[in-house]
């Protein structure tokens, strides 16, 4: 290949801009309740986007991503609560914690593949969850902590940002989502992204073509962990609450489910998946306390009949240019 850079994909770029513009415009038409929901969904979509890097692009199915979300959530929240860190520092701390945890977990868990990898990540996440309960003196376990007033606003280049303002929260979570999507799109089009896809499709062959597959997988896990942790840290700081349930296995399953539904390996898939699944569960929970039934049925149906997810199918059938 004459190293011509891949042509800027105009259609894909236009789609991104349209989606972001639509999300931005949405805040002016949504009633308060739904605006808050969409704020949450966008943060969860960042989490799923991080998950997608590992599962959708690299082909590694983790059942323990709640630990990265939790690492971001707790690092940011505890630093703000106990150490009085400002919002930007707490957020950065959360992201770094997630990346470091991913490095640590990766060095051990990436020695396994397939089913063992799934179970090992599940168990590590269970240890992390139990840790949030064990150190209850600091975390208050299930009951959780509400962040103090000092962590509800911050100065940013002279401007003061008020996190109790719903519009501010909405736009900050949109900003984070834009950054996450740009990151994934960038990674997907990079040399590392190509290596990740090669590993997903045929790892022995990738190794035999000169790829250090362990290093590539570790990179993917670190990017994935950092993005998941960014979502966790944002969740803690935007909504001013941290609790053990955010590190529970349910969150790992949700990340998987959002990605599966939207389309693993497509940039916008996890966003769509997060939207649909969040509202599906939201509606179901108005009728029954057994709303997790929806999660179960969705998982089974997706694996059985729809393994490419929505955007994956659209891309495969109709729009191959879809990012």
């Amino acid at each position, binding site marked *: 290949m004459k190293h011509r850079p891949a042509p800027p994909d105009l259609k894909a770029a236009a789609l991104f801009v349209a989606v972001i513009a639509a999300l931005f415009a949405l805040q002016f038409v949504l009633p308060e309740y739904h605006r808050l929901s969409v704020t949450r969904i966008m943060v969860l979509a960042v989490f799923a986007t991080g998950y997608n890097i590992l599962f959708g692009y690299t082909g590694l199915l983790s059942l323990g991503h709640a630990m990265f979300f939790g690492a971001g959530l707790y690092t940011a929240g505890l630093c703000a609560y106990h150490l009085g860190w400002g919002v930007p520092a707490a957020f950065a701390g959360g992201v770094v914690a997630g990346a470091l945890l991913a490095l640590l977990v990766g060095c051990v*868990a990436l020695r396994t593949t397939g*089913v063992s990898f799934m*179970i090992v990540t599940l168990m590590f996440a269970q240890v992390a969850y139990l*840790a949030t309960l*064990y150190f209850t003196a600091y975390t208050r376990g299930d009951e959780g902590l509400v962040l103090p007033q000092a962590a509800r606003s911050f100065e940013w280049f002279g401007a003061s940002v008020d996190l109790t303002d719903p519009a501010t929260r909405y736009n900050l979570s949109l900003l984070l989502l834009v950054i996450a999507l740009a990151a994934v799109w960038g990674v997907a089009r990079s040399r590392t992204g190509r290596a990740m896809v090669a590993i997903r499709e045929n790892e022995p062959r990738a190794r035999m073509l000169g790829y250090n597959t362990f290093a590539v997988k570790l990179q993917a896990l670190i990017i994935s962990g950092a993005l998941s942790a960014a979502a966790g840290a944002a969740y803690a700081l935007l909504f001013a609450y941290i609790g053990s349930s955010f590190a529970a296995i349910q969150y790992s399953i949700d990340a998987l489910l959002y990605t599966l539904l939207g389309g693993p390996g497509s940039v916008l898939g996890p966003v769509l998946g997060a939207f649909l699944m969040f509202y599906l569960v939201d509606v179901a929970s108005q009728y029954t306390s057994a709303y*997790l039934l929806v*999660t*179960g049925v969705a998982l089974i149906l997706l694996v059985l009949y729809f393994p490419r997810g929505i955007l994956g199918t659209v891309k495969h059938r109709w729009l191959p240019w879809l990012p």
Partner: protein
Amino acid sequence: MNFAPFLFLASLEGLVQAAVLCLTAVGLSLVFGVMRVVNVAHGEFFMLGAVLAWWLASLTPGHAAFGFALALVIAPALVGAVALAADRLILKRLDYRPEATIVATIGLLYVIQQTALLTFGPDARPVEAPFYFRVQFPWFGYSGHKLLVVAAAAAVLLAAWYVIAKTRIGLVMRATRFDRDTARAFGINVHRVYAAVFAVGAMFAAVGAVLVVPVRQAHYLMGLDPLLLSFIVVIIGGLGSIRGTVVAAILIGFSDGLISVFFSPTLAKMASTLLVALVLVFKPQGLFAVQSR
């Protein structure tokens, strides 16, 4: 202070725990060993057994022993039927692909658990023990039912061992486990073997649950602990090795009670989960790698 009675009591409790764990874990191990399927919904079959036992017992008039006996026969059969349906409708269609089946059984976990919540409700419910006979030791009396649990579990396991090791059915199972293509070449209907094994695996959990429900209570979330413990046992014992599983179940059933006497249960769970994860990474053949196959 005399420590002996205390230790003796702890061992008895450990024995009961180990017996139930043995049944549950052997079911999981059997399914993994023969089908290479990691059944995340296994704990829900346990829960279903307990909840059905409550239901059957509450339907049966007269002495509690009748209800219990009925439950001991019918609950596992019903659980087996549910597992059979899951195998036909889900696992078989996925061609037993390992990663897909894990995701599907996670879905199955939610479906069974939430259906129980819908029908059975969120409350824990007691089941009456079949009899109140107490065995009198020098220091204290001990529930006769708990000893029955141990004896029954041992009997079921022995029967299972006999079937697997000595009969044609066992031979077919072992052949399928060894290599599914070769088994097919020898005219074994692999899909039928898988369906049967999946159902029997679930029934093991259900029997354990029915036996123990009079001392525990039935609750729709009760499947999670046996699931985690069975995973621990199966991994420590060596994936798919039945003998290793039994050894590990006894060890862990015993130590679980003792450890939580000395440590915070949360810390004990953290340590054991971490240990097991590391075993899976560094010693996937288990700690008691009896040469299987």
